[in-house]
């Protein structure tokens, strides 16, 4: 049986456009609002990543850090993310959910219990920032056994030999980090160069749904539309931060931003 993630990509391919993937942090700015945000942007996105915030995120830039700290300060607990997904998946227009975060949270919760709760709440995939290959072999296998996608990451520094091995151990979706940067950095590599690297990976295995993330905003998204999917995270987190600062409703603000992103890749 095809996974929800695979089906989402196939649908986009038929429509001749990349999948739009959002990233927002669970309980940011609070429990209720993060669910509302998710529901509202679901009309535009094809897959949704939800971050489980960690106090010491070494791969994230300031926008996602701010969202993460805000969520933790507001009392985020790991069980909240499963409740969020459960409620969200009850809406009839829900999209596949990918949880993203750092390994200590999973390790602490217990890998098996984490996966069990993922399954129960309806999670389709997991991205673990600091559990690279081959360290992730065991956990990735456990995910597969539960029919949950473990999404491998590739970076500009990943060697060809390593790319081959990682792709071999990957599931339906693979994440290519556009440049050497933490999340939310300014795109310091030309889209042409990013797509060149992207194609190199696709040539090794064209079947995997390969998405690009890091540094993607309303300004850069159009130039990368030939990819299978594009992830936007920091821009969304920043929008929440700014709307809170200005006393605006982050739900409607975010809806507009994501709608705008979607229009650029149609």
């Amino acid at each position: 049986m095809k996974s929800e993630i695979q089906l989402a990509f196939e649908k986009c391919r038929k429509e001749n456009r990349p999948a739009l993937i959002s990233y927002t942090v669970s309980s940011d700015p609070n429990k209720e609002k993060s669910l509302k945000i998710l529901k509202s942007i679901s009309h535009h996105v094809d897959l949704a990543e939800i971050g489980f915030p960690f106090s010491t995120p070494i791969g994230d830039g300031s926008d996602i850090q701010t969202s993460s700290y805000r969520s933790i300060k507001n009392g985020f607990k790991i069980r909240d993310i499963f409740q969020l997904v459960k409620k969200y998946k009850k809406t009839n227009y829900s999209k596949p959910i990918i949880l993203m975060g750092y390994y200590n949270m999973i390790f602490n919760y217990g890998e098996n219990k984490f996966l069990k709760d993922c399954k129960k709440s309806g999670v389709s995939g997991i991205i673990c920032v600091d559990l690279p290959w081959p360290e992730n072999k065991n956990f990735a296998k456990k995910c597969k056994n539960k029919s949950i996608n473990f999404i491998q990451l590739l970076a500009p520094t990943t060697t060809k030999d390593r790319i081959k091995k990682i792709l071999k151990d990957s599931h339906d979706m693979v994440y290519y980090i556009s440049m050497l940067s933490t999340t939310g950095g300014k795109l310091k590599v030309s889209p042409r160069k990013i797509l060149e690297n992207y194609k190199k990976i696709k040539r090794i295995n064209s079947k995997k749904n390969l998405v690009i993330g890091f540094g993607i905003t309303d300004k850069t998204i159009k130039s990368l539309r030939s990819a299978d999917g594009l992830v936007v995270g920091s821009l969304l987190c920043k929008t929440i931060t700014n709307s809170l600062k200005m006393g605006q409703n982050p739900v409607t603000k975010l809806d507009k931003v994501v709608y705008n992103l979607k229009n650029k890749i149609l």
Partner: protein
Amino acid sequence: MSLKIKKGIPLIDQHDKNGMWGGKFGGNFVPETLKKPIEDLEKLFSKLRKDKSFIKERDYYFENYVGAPTPLIPLNQLTDHLGGAQIWAKVVSENPGTAHKIYNAIVHCLIAKRAGKKFVCGDTGAGMAGKTLAMVAKKFGLKAKIFMGVKDIKRQKPNVDAMKKFGAEVVPVTSGSQTLIDAVSECMRYWVANCLKSHLVVGSTVGPNIFIKICGYSTSQISRELIVQIKDEFGKIPKRLKLLNVCGGGSSSYGFWSSFMDYDKRQVEFVGIEAGGPKKSKLHAAPLTNNSKIGILHGAAQYVIQDKDGQIGLTDSISAGLDYSGISPLHCFLKDAKRARYTSATDEEALNAYKLVSSMENISPSLEPAHAFAEAIKIAPKLSKDTVIVVNSCGDSLKDRDIIKKRLGSYVR
């Protein structure tokens, strides 16, 4: 299951193919982007360790620039005052940079040069690692960027001034608790974005596996000297020897103990002293003493202060250099293998120890080693006269003058 230490092999090399000690501490829990730079560094370091010209260069700088060996001196007044065991100090604070940090800084800068890198970046808590890296980088013609928490910048001003004097850029870190833990995170983030041109210097035996190894390899100089000095002084290794060392990240203590690793612990005991924090506070920086759970912090599995959910906990210590929620995987291993004993001293005990040692002896330990002296003061009176305690005095108090003045009313060095 208790862990076993192999004899005749440095502890830094006793990890498995995943970079883990005892199958559960250390490793490489890093973003994919860093895998290649780390692998390159691993290859280069393993090559250089066998390269005679590299070792010659290292020893040249250790002898002629650091001025090895640092003195081993008897603390006669303190010994007489306390009664009991003989107390000695290995005065590592005599080093340029007034701490043990210079060994790691030199080795890293030599590696950076061989890797063809022109930039180094490093984290610092108390500013000792930062100051020393700035100084050494300048000597080797490298540009240094030092990440330091804003709280630490305020409380360790003399070191910040020194870093700037050596031409380093000090990057204030405003995230989280604004101390060492955030400085390490921010420095790693910087390295993620700049790993091709910049060489990362992790300031202690923490972080991804290779950084633990390089740091431990470097600070081992301390015990290479000490074992010779002790044999010179006593004719042999005494029947009862206790090596007391403060533990923050754990680099000085690993270096202070490594040459004695194979001795029976009944003969050569290792005592690591962690930061107990303020007397009445629940915050501390003592994950080993207080039996914290294993977690993953800054790329390595270790005992780490964290809440039920896995969020890394805050620490509070008078010593900026000890204000770290984790502890080196090497010490986690030594604890579980029962080779070392770990305990803690409070801020107040450290201050009192500083005061007593500074007033009686010709040395003036900073608040970090003052934690170890506090333990020496505690145990010495109960021990026999033929017991020898050596405390690693691995920092000088000058950097703490403002804190000491505030807490004790005056600062006398």
